[in-house]
């Protein structure tokens, strides 16, 4: 029973503090699922799930919630709880915003907070990249070459799915 409560609370927290969406939510997800105290996923599992999220439909936070919920509890109920947990805070907050949005739109205090939150979100994304730069994900020099090539290709606006499939094929040829 305890584990279901912990799963729900972790993903509720991710939904509540996950500002910036997408990659900006990754360090928060990693903090909750791949590391002390929970250690639900290894760093390699986590990286692989980010990759799987890129090549499957839907937001990465939802994909991650469903996967961790099922993998940890071993049943669909766990997956339902985590997915519900991650959706509930945005649902409540967005409902309030939608209801009062004319008032919120020009609220000066919200604007003040967002002046630092916007660059802060870049920091969150950078943190996700930094914590994944480890010996599990970079196993040899070829890894560095793949990293550099994908980095440049991504700046040239080549689609992420193509890049993932190409680097997977490179992996097949190399390893």
């Amino acid at each position, binding site marked *: 029973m305890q584990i279901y409560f912990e799963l729900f609370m972790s993903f509720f927290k991710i939904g*509540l*503090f*996950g*500002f910036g*969406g*997408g*990659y900006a939510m990754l*360090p928060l997800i990693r*903090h909750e699922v791949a590391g002390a105290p929970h250690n639900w996923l290894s760093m390699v599992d986590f990286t*692989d799930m980010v*990759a*799987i*999220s*890129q*090549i*499957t*439909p*839907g*937001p990465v*936070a*939802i994909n991650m919630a*469903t996967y961790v919920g*099922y*993998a940890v509890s071993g049943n669909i109920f766990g*997956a339902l709880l985590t997915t519900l947990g*991650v*959706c509930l805070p*945005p*649902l409540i907050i967005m409902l309030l*915003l*939608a209801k009062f949005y004319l008032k919120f*739109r020009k609220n*000066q205090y919200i604007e*003040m*907070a967002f002046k*630092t939150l*916007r*660059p802060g979100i*870049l*920091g*969150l*994304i*950078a*943190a996700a*990249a930094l914590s*994944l730069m480890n010996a*599990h*994900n*970079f196993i040899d020099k070829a*890894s560095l070459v793949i990293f550099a090539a*994908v*980095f440049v290709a991504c700046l040239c606006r080549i689609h992420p*799915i193509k890049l*993932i499939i190409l*680097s*997977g*094929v490179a*992996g*097949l040829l*190399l390893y």
Partner: protein
Amino acid sequence: MNELWQLFWSFFRIGMFTLGGGYAMLPLIQHEVVEKRQWVDSKEFIELLALAQTAPGPMAVNAAVFVGYKRKSLAGSIVATLGMTLPSFMIILFIAMYLIGFRENRYVESFFKGIRPAVVALIAAPLYSLGKAMKISWFGIILAGSVAAAIAFADISPAIMVIVIAALGLCLGIIQKKRKAA
């Protein structure tokens, strides 16, 4: 009833056919809710984006809640969110139940060895264009760097960092306002 079903179905399609999540989903959401269904006009869509970025959580979920609420109030937002999340939920559940074991396979393993550094690059590369788009200042760069270091090296919870950054913005804003008033 009919429009609730339409809301569910529209967001189900958005959830089903957008790979990657986040900003990649915007064009499809816009096509579905602005052009095809005309649930919101393009001015409201821009406001929706601003609000979706203000609220925490996945942007696509926020968009679903907003459009659903606008058309059919609470029931609409719940139905739209359900439609949005259901495709990911089913697909990931299928992968977790039946496919994840294949990772032990030699070829799948090699495939993932190639993918892992690529994922890190995919996360890191948008930093440049995002920074440029928001016209980041030196102060912003230092702030972002400190946030990244605090989380990645000192293992401070990102939730705490979010609160600290927002509080910092509030303090700076209030100080600036007082100075102007003085």
